[in-house]
């Protein structure tokens, strides 16, 4: 047991190797993880539901498969699943009161593929309600704290998965990224957050926020683990018409240790100088680090990127207003009585949805409504084209782009009370989402905030052209290897638990 307990702090790749080589059983790893969860959760609150029984059953099955000689790429690896992905028999809430009691009768493709690869579902993690938010504060069902400073948010919307991985409550967290919801919490929690190209991972069973933007991806402690997760999940799914048929070449074998021959674009419009002295210095050091690894830095321009937030806050709410219509109290979920069926809808949705979800449904409904459609929705779609064109232009002169993952480190609870200031949290991540590009956030250093005692992690964002996941993960791995920023500070949550 102690052996497996120590193993929990290693990477998914190392855990899988130990299980495959039968140095430890999946059951032992799972039991140790569940114990770790019990000890850690009072401080962190990453999980909404812990699936102890299902996890142990799955672990037994993995042990049987390994005993029969199968080698599973994620054998026995503890997995945290964001609670907007369906898993048969598990409560799947999206962090919303409207789904608080809903038990999914089917399993999402991404989760099914992870289980097939040997991962063990430890539990379902907290998130901003319906993945709408950047701090997890919009969850109606629980508070998740940043493992590096419990007075701060873990980021969002995939904050629960990010926190679980940072606090060693899982080796891999699945998140979903619509405008930055994997990359930003990754950066806030000092872990790797990777959003593949739109359509690479099936959305079947992912409860939709904005269908044309949502993409599932991993939160992990190493880039290699992100690559292994990507390799397990990516690929066309006949159940998702928007999943792409482009062949997937495994990324794990393409990880590299240098950046020779790569041109890395530094975005003129994303000057880190605007983020203040400490952040500015960190990012300049990070870019220099890329150069030291052999990359050639080139300046690129994304002139339309500054319109990303405005574009995103029309398109995503428009889609969400329609996607969330089905939560109507008829077939599943919450129902609040009303005089007639319309009264029931009104009351159910008023009680079931939180503030932010309502705001987005309202703005999206407005953007699609008669007389406003062209001015808002169509114009935003056209702006989306311009933003994607900007990236195409930039990638004519570089292979990857490097920029900040977020404009600040994790902030304190309640610090962003004005909705628009929260929306701006995704300033650096939204343009890539609108263009559908693969992007990753990798730890690139620490800052000491003026209003806190704990140093906070900062993330570097790397982004590649469509379908360039191998290149992107390869480069991120080289940077991670050379810098190893994660090793500098242990999470407070870990110290408290120990």
């Amino acid at each position: 047991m102690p052996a497996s307990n120590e193993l929990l702090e290693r990477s998914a790749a190392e855990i899988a190797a130990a299980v495959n080589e039968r140095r430890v059983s999946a059951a032992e790893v799972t039991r140790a993880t569940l114990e770790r969860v019990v000890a850690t959760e009072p401080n962190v609150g990453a999980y909404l539901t812990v699936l102890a029984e299902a996890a142990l059953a799955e672990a037994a099955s993995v042990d049987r498969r390994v005993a029969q000689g199968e080698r599973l790429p994620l054998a026995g690896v503890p997995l945290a699943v964001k609670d907007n992905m369906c898993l048969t028999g598990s409560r799947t809430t999206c962090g919303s009161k409207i789904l608080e009691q809903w038990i999914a009768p089917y399993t999402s493709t991404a989760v099914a593929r992870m289980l097939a690869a040997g991962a063990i579902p430890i539990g379902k993690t907290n998130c901003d309600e319906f993945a709408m938010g950047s701090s997890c504060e919009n969850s109606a069902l629980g508070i998740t704290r940043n493992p590096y400073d419990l007075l701060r948010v873990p980021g969002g919307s995939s904050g629960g998965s990010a926190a679980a991985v940072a606090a060693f409550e899982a080796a891999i967290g699945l998140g979903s990224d619509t405008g930055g919801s994997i990359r930003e919490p990754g950066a806030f929690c000092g872990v790797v957050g990777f959003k593949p190209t739109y359509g690479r991972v099936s959305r079947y069973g992912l409860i939709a926020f904005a269908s044309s933007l949502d993409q599932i991806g991993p939160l992990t402690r190493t880039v290699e683990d992100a690559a292994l997760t990507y390799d397990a999940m990516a690929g066309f799914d006949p159940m998702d018409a928007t999943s792409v048929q482009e062949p997937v070449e495994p990324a794990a074998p393409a990880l590299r240790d240098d950046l020779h021959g790569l041109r890395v674009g530094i975005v003129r419009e994303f000057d880190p100088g605007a983020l203040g002295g400490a952040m500015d210095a960190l990012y300049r050091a990070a870019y220099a680090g890329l150069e030291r690894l052999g990359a050639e830095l080139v300046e690129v321009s994304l002139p339309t990127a500054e319109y990303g937030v405005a574009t995103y806050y029309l398109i995503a709410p428009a889609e969400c207003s329609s996607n969330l219509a089905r939560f109507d109290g008829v077939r599943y979920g919450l129902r609040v009585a009303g005089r007639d069926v319309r009264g029931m809808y009104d009351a159910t949705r008023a009680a079931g949805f939180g503030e932010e979800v309502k705001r987005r449904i309202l703005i999206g409904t407005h953007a699609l409504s008669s007389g406003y459609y062209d001015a808002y929705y169509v114009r935003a779609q056209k702006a989306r084209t311009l933003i994607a064109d900007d990236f195409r232009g930039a990638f004519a002169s570089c292979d990857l782009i490097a920029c900040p993952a977020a404009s600040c480190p994790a902030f304190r609870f309640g610090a962003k009370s004005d909705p628009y200031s929260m929306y701006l949290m995704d300033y650096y991540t939204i343009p890539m989402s609108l263009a559908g590009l693969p992007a990753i956030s990798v730890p690139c250093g620490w800052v000491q905030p003026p209003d806190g005692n704990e140093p906070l992690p900062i993330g570097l964002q790397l982004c590649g052209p469509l379908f360039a996941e191998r290149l992107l993960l390869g480069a991120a791995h080289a940077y991670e290897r050379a810098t190893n920023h994660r090793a500098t500070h242990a999470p407070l949550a870990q110290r408290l638990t120990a």
Partner: protein
Amino acid sequence: MNERYEPVIGIECHVELKTATKMFCGCCNEFGGEPNTKICPVCLGLPGALPVPNRRAIEHIVTVGVAFGSTIAEFSKFDRKNYFYPDMPKDYQISQYDMPVAAGGSVKYWTEDGELRECRLTRVHLEEDTGKSTHAGSTDGRIAGSEYSLIDFNRAGVPLMECVSEPDLRSAQEAVAYLEALRRTLLALGVSDVKMEEGSLRCDANVSVRPVGSSSYGTKTEIKNMNSFRSVERAIASEVARQIAIVESGGRIEQETRGWDEINGVTHSMRSKEEAHDYRYFPDPDLVPLEISPAEVRRVTQTLPELPAQRFERYTARYSIAPRQTAQLIDNPALAGYFERVLALGARPAQAINFVLGDLSRLANETGVAVAESAVTPEYLSGVIALVEDRRITSKVAKDVLARCWHGEGAPAAIVEREGLARQSDTGALVPLVDQMLAAHPAVVADYRAGKQNVLGFLVGQVMKASRGTADPVVVKELLNERLSSG
């Protein structure tokens, strides 16, 4: 109908397509069944489920478009039509807004007197059906006054074709003729069962009236709740009369939706929602566009069966068959196929149609065996027709021979031979028979001689009967005339 006004009618049809599975999921597409057993995450709109279009349904709609001469869009897409309704699982319907699969074209239909006309189509597009609500607590199962509703989602997600016509129809009869032609064509194409009673064909009518000679349209109303072709005809006629009466008395027609009341034979206003619908259509981000290549359209064109309107033209123009008989054949494809095989064996169409729709159809009704499945093969029928044509049997005997064939007595020529049914036109043989009949009916003979010439038919019939139909009626008539005038 008032002759100073002209009705202007357009029809909007919803047709459930015949496929093994639903439009966007693998649940079975069958009518009825145990409630809520053909449901899955997709058609029940469960969180996280995604639609994937049914290839067959798209093929069907392309086929329909090609058959009606519509332009098939090279680029088409699905949109969401957003509105809340309890039997619509996602609270939006996946439909097509500005890029339907097919646009334009026309449905050719024919009137009672056989005139072929056409009604232009605006568009044909694909969408998904809703579930079914049963309203409980009201006296008549209607929604008004009900206390609650029960929902069965088996039908939710069934592929639905919407087919919108231009306002080209000018009477209730034309509207029904249009619907019948549409129905026949869809049946011939094998894309739908088109059963109004099972709801696989549903239609609404847009009706307005205008002074004859006017080229602008009057205000239209939309008529709903018509459950049969007969109710379509009655509803439109009633609505036209209502509108004319309003216009005549100086009133104004209100643009509205009206429901057809089958029992009272009137339409009534369904104004329930005051505000206009705001469906917030937008491209469904869960689906990717459709591209239908010209090569695919060519392939479909080449595999198209002969359509009812083409068959109608062929039968009426080339074969000179009456429109009503043509319609009967077209509505019974197996019978039409039988008929065509008889023609292929050399029979004249006029002869063949009479036997097929007359004697054989009657025998089919009596015995419950379809003509095409009966012992009277196309070869047998064409053999009988040839015997008549060659004057080797009378048409009276032909009926007898066919009945014997039907009941399994063998080939026509063999029956004629065996039963001695060959035509008798030899005077020598017929004279004794004629004399015998004259002797047996002295009163009739007396009547004839007193000037009642129409009794001749009776006497011919008696001779025919005595000869078991074999006597040549022309010769018999000649002989009778001869005898009666000379005697």
